[in-house]
């Protein structure tokens, strides 16, 4: 994913707090994906207006972590969602 890409959750894909299992999940057509804390933190920032670069920059600041590391980790995660059509990208 490029830093200028703007990720967005398409219609029918949404975050949901699973009270029974005490975790966040991403609900999509006929799938429910359990999110770890990092996955949830990233998707929580995806608002359809900010770019991947801006989102990862903000996360790096908030968690005092190296931005390159955050970009590598979240790029892999978001690309995997994108290949399954759970995430769209506009440039």
């Amino acid at each position, binding site marked *: 994913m490029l830093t200028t890409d703007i990720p967005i959750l398409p219609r029918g894909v949404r975050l949901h707090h699973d009270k029974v299992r005490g975790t966040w999940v991403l*609900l999509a057509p006929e799938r429910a994906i359990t999110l770890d804390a990092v996955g949830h933190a990233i998707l929580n920032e995806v608002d359809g207006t900010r770019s991947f670069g801006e989102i990862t920059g903000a996360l790096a600041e908030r968690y005092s972590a190296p931005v390159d590391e955050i970009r590598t980790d979240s790029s892999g995660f978001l690309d995997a969602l*994108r290949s399954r059509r759970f995430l769209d990208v506009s440039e």
Partner: protein
Amino acid sequence: MTAPAPIAMLAELTYRCPLSCPYCSNPVQMAAQDSELDTADWARVFREAAEMGVLQLHLSGGEPASRRDLTDLVSAARKAGLYTNLITSGIGLTEKRLTQLDDAGLDHVQLSLQGTNPEMADEIGGYRGGFARKLQVAEWIGKIGFPLTLNAVLHRRNLHQLPRALEMAQEMGARRIEVATVQFHGWALKNRAALMPTREQAKEANQIVTQARKRLKGRLVIDYVPADYHEDFPKRCMGGWGTTGLNVTPDGQVLPCHAAQSIPHLTFDRVQDKSLNEIWYNGAAFNAYRGTDWMQEPCRSCDRKTIDFGGCRCQAMAVIGDPAATDPVCIKSPHHESLQTQASAFSAQDDAPLIYREAPQKSSDPIN
């Protein structure tokens, strides 16, 4: 053993259906229309499901659009916090009704495809004009913006249409297609001679799917159910019995899978009598094949036993009459060769007629 909470529930709202597909997986004996759960019953079941951990609700049938209260049911499901998926042939949906379903919060539509042209689709569905109507419905779905999965049901008569089905999914703007080779349960068992794919067809379908997955990566997701009579390992049916999903019939019986009524020694609780929670964790039918303790050889000592859980219980019942046996699809089953011989024999019966699904009657006579 302690069972995990279920993730998905299939709500069979009605067995009524305008189509009469020969591969219908509903039971041969079906509950009558006047024994269907009412709106308030379903709403309560949806709440119970969400409270116990169900995330995904599949509204199915029969044809769920045959329920006049479908919009109210979707509202109730969303209010309970469930992700709602409508599994439909499209018949019975109008643009106005789809707009109402949109307002009610419907998350996703799965549209079935009986063929890629009117000649095939209308013959298989036994419903003239069905294909044209379906295309119209797909257009409305796209206009409203519902995420769409196309569900292409394939068998010997239409497997050659698979490439066109993949194109149609893209033309309709579907994100996903299910390439579902017919599984022989319920009514479909009557049509094995008419519908069984040939071994060559099954192989070709495997190749087409593998290539299409590469070519369409990131554009169209392909979920594939192969022709399992021609495979060497069985499907991981239901993700493991009583681990992932449950099924509620139109008259309120709770089943571990939609074909479980074909196993004669099982008894099923009803949502009218017990809570869903009680049925899931303590119901006799759910505990019958949970885990691995029920297994016989060759499953018991097999290193794949927690991969496929011995395959499909209903298939073991249907083919060899023992629901605790290894699924005969498995290469380790003593019945594997005989199943493959049967499959080849069925697939060679070119003149076998389609035996169409018969609809349930209006009757207050108890069934089952």
